[in-house]
């Protein structure tokens, strides 16, 4: 733990050592080379179930970092795929430190065939040629790109090449506690910033200097992007090379936050810090309204009658602009995979088939990236899904600049934190964030 200096270098050693002796990595991905004869030794037990004919089912390794429930959900899909045919056999391997493991594997062999991919990473990794483009596969199988969320595909693309298909799409929407709003006399969930502010003021409860119920959660500064869209702005300039928030639009977001936090006092900095699932402030009625994604639905539904909540799309800004940020995962094929054709079959089966995408949605309570699956009553008849689907209609993905996330986490958010604590005024905040942000974008532009 204390030897970070050597740790940095250790990665290299592992990389080179693994390159010399490929077998050392085989404990992680021992099925990658199973198309070779060597598989007949260790593949016997795995293959036995799906093997009826010549005993040469292709073994695929699928890496992801979803553990616990997520792992079970993946296993359900993998099992269903393995049962559906007998030519390909997939195995899910949980990798806690997914990206680091993948990078070492990509350079030293032992790479997986299918990889769970947090989509925003694409612009940083695709230029390094570690992912295999799937355009040819798409064309060969005649898949229609319009069946998928366009923004999600855009996020999986880099210089006109597509690198994967979207597994999930998500966007934040406004969760509100029906009981708290009703008690405070708010009959309709907010649809604009003003209504949001008023509802937050009414639902906030202070007991002396102690905040008992926060009307609205202002914990996540990372949502600046969404607020900025609602104010009619955008994070980067049209050419995607510079920040674009140091203007009156960025200012209106900061003023809105300041009003809520310091004048209306509907929230307190640090109020939700460290509250995990068991003590989630919204679930326990300590926050009346909060932005969150569809991934929280299953958690909040567990509370049943104790938590009567609703969801609405993000309220619109002063000029009626709507804004949402789309995120989610995709499935990609590493360039180093030896079974790219088979990997594509698996990805196609999962993400581009109505029934399977729906099975995935029901298993994991995620919104699949494949639009035809959304016509199912499972989505259409559930009032909690509709607001998310509505939000996804106008939500935009994060800008595809390899330095974007660095800019956000290192230039923007620290300055926003200082602003929220009144350590600097709005103009300085935006100016500093812009200067540092532009520099970060320039520094990280070239990733080749």
């Amino acid at each position, binding site marked *: 733990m204390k030897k*970070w200096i050597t740790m*940095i270098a250790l*990665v290299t*050693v592992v990389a080179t050592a693994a390159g010399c002796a490929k077998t050392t990595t085989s404990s992680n991905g021992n099925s990658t080379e199973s198309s070779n004869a060597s598989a007949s030794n260790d593949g016997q037990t795995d293959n036995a179930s799906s093997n009826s004919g010549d005993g040469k089912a292709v073994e695929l390794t699928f890496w992801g970092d979803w553990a616990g429930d997520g792992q079970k959900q993946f296993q359900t899909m993998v099992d269903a795929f393995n049962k559906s045919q007998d030519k390909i056999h997939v195995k899910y391997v949980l990798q806690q430190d997914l990206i680091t493991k993948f990078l070492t594997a990509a350079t030293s062999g032992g790479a997986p065939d299918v990889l769970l991919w947090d989509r925003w990473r694409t612009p940083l990794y695709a230029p390094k040629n570690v992912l295999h483009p799937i355009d040819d596969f798409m064309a060969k199988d005649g898949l229609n790109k319009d069946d998928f969320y366009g923004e999600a595909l855009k996020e999986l693309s880099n210089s006109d090449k597509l690198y994967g298909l979207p597994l999930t799409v998500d966007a934040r929407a406004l969760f509100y506690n029906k009981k708290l709003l009703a008690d405070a006399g708010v009959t309709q969930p907010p649809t604009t910033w003003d209504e949001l502010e008023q509802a937050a003021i009414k639902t906030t409860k202070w007991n002396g200097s102690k905040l008992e119920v926060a009307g609205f959660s202002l914990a996540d500064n990372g949502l600046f992007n969404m607020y900025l869209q609602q104010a009619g702005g955008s994070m980067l300039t049209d050419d995607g090379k510079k920040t674009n928030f140091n203007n009156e639009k960025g200012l209106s977001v900061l003023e809105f936050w300041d009003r809520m936090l310091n004048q209306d006092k509907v929230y307190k900095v640090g*109020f939700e810090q*460290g509250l995990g699932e068991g003590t989630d402030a919204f679930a326990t009625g300590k926050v009346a309204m909060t932005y969150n994604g569809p991934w929280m639905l299953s958690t909040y539904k567990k509370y049943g009658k104790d938590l009567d909540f609703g969801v609405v799309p993000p309220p619109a800004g002063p000029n009626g602009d709507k804004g949402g940020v789309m995120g989610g995962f995709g499935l990609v094929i590493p360039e180093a995979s030896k079974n790219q054709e088979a990997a594509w079959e698996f990805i196609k089966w999962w993400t581009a088939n109505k029934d399977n995408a729906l099975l995935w949605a029901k298993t994991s309570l995620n919104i699949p990236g494949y639009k035809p699956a959304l016509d199912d009553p499972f989505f259409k008849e559930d009032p909690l899904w509709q607001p998310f689907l509505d939000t996804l209609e106008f939500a935009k993905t994060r800008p595809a600049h390899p330095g974007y996330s*660095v800019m956000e986490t290192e230039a923007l958010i620290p300055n926003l*934190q200082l602003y929220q604590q009144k350590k600097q005024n709005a103009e300085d905040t935006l100016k500093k964030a812009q200067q540092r942000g532009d520099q970060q974008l320039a520094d990280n532009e070239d990733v080749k």
Partner: protein
Amino acid sequence: MSSMGKLNQHQARMAYLFITPTMLLFFAFTIIPVVMALYLSFTNYDVVSRMEFVKLDNYKKLLEDDLFWTTFKNVFFYSVIFVPLNIIISLLLAMLLNFKRFGVKLFRTLNYLPTLTSAVAASTVWIWLLHPEFGLVNNLLSYAGITGPAWLAQTETAMFSIIMVTLWQSVGSNMIIYIAGLQGVPDYLYESAKLDGATAFARFRYITWPQLRPTTFLVSTMAIIGALQLFDQAFVLTQGGPGNVTKTPVYLIYNQGFNQLKMGYASAQAFVLAVAILIFSFINMRINKSEEPIV
């Protein structure tokens, strides 16, 4: 050399044989990585696709990197408070528990327990204890009529919270080292000092403290190295926030290397950090040396 008998030669050979495995491991896992990291700090290595020699570019960039120097300022601030407090508290605890009385061992164990917990797990618990509204710390303060701050979220208190948590976790092991040191101080020194009429404070100042010099050197050096390499607690408690006030060099190096794939630049940062640690350990050594033991 001629005086070295056959037996000695045999022993020497066996000695080398015995230390060979350790030396090989040390070479493979410490020396080689350090040398490679030094080389990498002159390249634009990104783990995947490139590794070109860029001469001093990384180090030039370092000089202009405000954030890097901010993180240094943060850990210096941290060290200046953490290291002396660490020594004082663990020495006081050691002196308090350096008696042969019934129950002392229990208290030693209790004081040592926090050291045994994992830094990440302990920090997670501390997040709850320090919660502004529902945390134990602020609840206790509220009985005294004080409205506690949002310890981890406010710029004024975030670093102090980290100092508090790391102190809680590290004084235990230093206390054990000091107890061992205290038990190595010969009794006759105290006896003769008492005969000469030395006060308790004088006995501490002129016997205990000088006699503990090697112990203090060990404890302070480890504390300085640990302080400059602060990572776990800052990572879990505050994620470097708010507004970068708790971001540390190791945090930055980790981020640069593993999240942004700038291994070359991260290596350069790591080397600057290593040099800084070397310098401060050296200063520490000189300060300790200047205080020569009386006996």
